[in-house]
């Protein structure tokens, strides 16, 4: 398998060509959060609707939409993320985010990256409520360090969205 096919698994290209939960939600009641990758100009917009933001981690993500534009890695990762967390609680989504970023960051450290993605988790994550599922296909990204920021853009935007929404 060439390096390219390692990076661009079929499931990634599928999410890129047919992104899940693509679109917008009315704000309010939804919250809109914009994420930028200043290096390449990619943008992810996360529209987040919670049943009751006051419930914190127990709030349920009743709806989620992804907007913006970017490369296949950033867009497919956000698409997979949306499919994985929609209908689940904020707490579960946070846990999955940690697991995903850990999958990216452990290798980032090994590859001599700055490891900044690993902050606060110590790099170890117990199995969560939500399986990585399709997201496992993105682990090839770690062999391409400059693309890790692409893969994590949607997730960082989601975390920011939880903070913005008070969830």
């Amino acid at each position, binding site marked *: 398998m*060439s390096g390219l096919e390692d990076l661009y698994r079929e499931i990634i290209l599928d999410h890129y060509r047919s992104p899940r939960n693509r679109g917008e939600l009315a704000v309010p009641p939804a919250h809109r959060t914009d994420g930028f990758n200043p*290096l390449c*100009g990619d943008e992810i917009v996360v529209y987040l609707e919670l049943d009751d933001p006051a419930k914190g981690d127990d709030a349920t993500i009743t709806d989620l939409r992804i907007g913006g534009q970017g490369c*296949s890695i950033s867009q497919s990762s956000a698409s997979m993320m949306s499919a994985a967390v929609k209908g689940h609680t904020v707490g579960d989504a946070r846990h999955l985010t940690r697991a995903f970023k850990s999958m990216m960051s452990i290798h980032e450290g090994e590859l001599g990256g700055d490891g900044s993605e690993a902050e606060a988790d110590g790099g170890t994550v117990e199995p969560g409520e939500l399986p990585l599922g399709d997201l496992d296909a993105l682990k090839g990204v770690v062999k391409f360090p400059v693309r890790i920021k692409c893969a994590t853009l949607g997730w960082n935007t989601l975390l920011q969205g939880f903070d913005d929404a008070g969830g």
Partner: protein
Amino acid sequence: MEVTGPGQDGPGHDLDVEAIRKDFPILATQMNGKRLTYLDTAATSQKPRAVLEAMDHYYETSNANVHRAAYSLAEQATNALEGARAKVARFIGATSPDQVVFTKNATESLNLVARAWGGKFLSAGDVVVLSQLEHHANIVPWHQLAAEQGVELRWIPVGPDGRLDLSGLDALLDGAKMLAVTAMSNVTGTITPVTELAERAHAAGALVAVDACQYAPHLSLDVQTFGADFVAFSSHKMLGPTGIGVLWGRPEVLDATPPFLGGGGMILDVTMDGFTPAAVPQKFEAGTPAVAEAVGLGAAVDYLDALGMDQVRAHEVALNRYAIEMLTDRFGDALTIHGPQEPEARGGVLSFALADIHPHDMSQVLNEHGVGVRPGHHCAKPLMRVLGVGATTRASWYVYNDTDDIDVLGDALADALDFFGL
């Protein structure tokens, strides 16, 4: 493919690219097991052996701190620095080396203009005119000035052809104190009419600062012809080392501009009550300068002079023509070339889109072919918004590129289309 290329463009227009390539050690290396096809000169150029050896030679024979010391070695070092300054001055048609200020890079040069000149001569409500083609280096320092001093920024628009739309220029310049504009876009390659812009800005009472970062390496630059007040460029894009840039200034404007950074080397006198700045250019060169880098830049200028800047330009126009014709022929409507379509209207920079393949993905596939291009916004986000794109893929060429490089690019693009199933 038989088309007119370098070396076939008539007498006086023939760079011997094969011989030139042998002067650049890095071009003999491989990337991902493939011949290195370096198409990212607009980001930074590669360096000929003459530049590398000049810097080594300086450190091996002449290194000491410059100015003031009485021993011979320090005098050699000072001569090396000032000799490089004289070479640069000659290269850009300056009437005296004293008009050449060494900075860290073009970004610092433009910051010097905005912060030191603008800091003294601009106040709330004063107008600075920029163009939508500008690199962030010629935008952000003015934004900072706008935020801190209430300066108003106006923008020369860019038309759909990637050229400046000068139809409203008189209104934009009305009451302006500064026009800061690029001579060549790092995204679209658009060459702007600097001489005309400078004349019209001066007629309106504004000074003119030119970002020649892309222009200086590729076209014959004559500051007298430009007619501007400041001209900024970087060494590393014109075969020289990183870490040194140039700000040329009209003598009376440099004299009137206060120092930018303070420290050793830029003073005439310091007391407990204050300081008296040195004369230009030392006034703008606080701290130990990048002497070896200046020597390297001097060697780069010598190398370009030996090739001849008119030959360099003719070679790049020929590559522009070859690339535009071949890629258009090969990819048809799937290909969008941003900026002017005429080879003569642009520098050796080609930003394009191909069949919705994102530039980041595109450059990843090209990397597998040993091709180095740049994806992204190229530090020109306002222009990206004008073009209606988030990013472009940019290929750029120089004296060491030939039609073979463009052919490799074409093959790699075809592979990307195939890979992404488009």
